[in-house]
């Protein structure tokens, strides 16, 4: 009887082990919380996530809002950010914003993984647009961190909505998604 119980326990342990092992080595974080930007055409502005934004995480060290690779390897990265400048311009006005996904920002090994520029023109400066980072493969080392930044480009002829209570990083009308990032380790 004792032996039978021992065997049953072993099988159950194996099944649980295999179930855990079956989880995909991925990370997904998204915010449903809008974020404010400032009118600054010199500095990039960080787009940060919080602990509560983590949807799924089997591979990333997410401490102090930093997204850090735990294990060297090849990873697929993709993401999106929705930005609504929240202004109205004339027919001659335009507003350019660029979003950057950066590895090791501010360090000697800094690398822009992806940058996407959007041009807002008359009639659509008060509507959110998606900045899309299409899936790409990258080689990362343990300790590499990934961050997202946005910048109002100096070519803009009009400022973004400068009210500090206005949140430019915002959901598009009719949809709740604001910003998201997926990192998946290749097998």
């Amino acid at each position, binding site marked *: 009887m004792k032996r039978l119980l021992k065997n049953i326990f072993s099988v159950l342990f194996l099944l649980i082990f295999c179930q855990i092992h079956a989880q995909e080595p991925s990370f997904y974080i998204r915010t*449903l919380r809008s974020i404010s930007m400032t009118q600054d055409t010199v500095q990039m502005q960080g787009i940060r996530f919080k602990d509560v934004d983590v949807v799924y995480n089997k591979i990333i060290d997410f401490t102090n809002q930093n997204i850090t690779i735990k294990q060297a390897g090849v990873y697929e990265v993709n993401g999106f950010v929705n930005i609504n400048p929240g202004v109205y311009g004339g027919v001659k006005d335009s507003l350019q914003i660029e979003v950057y996904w950066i590895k090791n920002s501010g360090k000697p090994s800094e690398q822009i993984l992806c940058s996407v520029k959007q041009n807002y023109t008359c009639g659509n400066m008060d509507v959110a647009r998606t900045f899309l980072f299409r899936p790409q493969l990258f080689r990362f080392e343990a300790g590499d961190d990934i961050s997202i930044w946005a910048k109002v480009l100096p070519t803009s002829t009009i400022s973004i909505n400068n009210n500090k209570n206005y949140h430019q990083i915002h959901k598009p009308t009719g*949809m709740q998604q604001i910003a998201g990032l997926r990192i998946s380790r290749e097998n």
Partner: protein
Amino acid sequence: MRKIFLLYLLIFLTNGWAQEYAFFHYESKLEQYFKFHPGASKKILYVNMDRNDIVFNSLFDLDEKTTQLIIPISGFYEISGYFHFDLRTGNVKNSRAGINFGFVQIQNGIEDYIAGTRISYTETNQDGFLDIYIDPTIVYLEKGVIIAPAMSTGLLDKPIVNAYLGCERTNKDCIAFQWSLKRISNEASSQKYF
């Protein structure tokens, strides 16, 4: 010796079973028309599907009477998709024009986008087909929720738009719409979409 062999077999079988993620893949050339009404940004229009266009399915329980795709097991899923889409509208210069493309979960009659992207239209991209991608997104889905590909106006200043999901006349064999759903973990969790 026999016991060791049986144990090895058990490990092999359970590991093999666990590594196979339940998966659904759909690819279609089906042409479909959509009418978007300005001011109806919350009105969600659904993409029709044909069971003959299901390329692979080890995820959903389907039979001849199935009309909705219902999540069979709670867990984390990875979803992605592609729309070949032509807005077919008048001039959208100096106006608001955008369409939200993505996937909706329907739970207790409430529709929520779980993955999506917004395409903003201007005079530079309003004419002709665009390739619209819903890149891989990880979501937690509860058993019993309905999953459906969808689109909505977002914000549209122009009159009714007759949009088209399909292929160019010169490229009738293109893929007009495709999507995939893969269960990546059975662990219990929860996720808010609103």
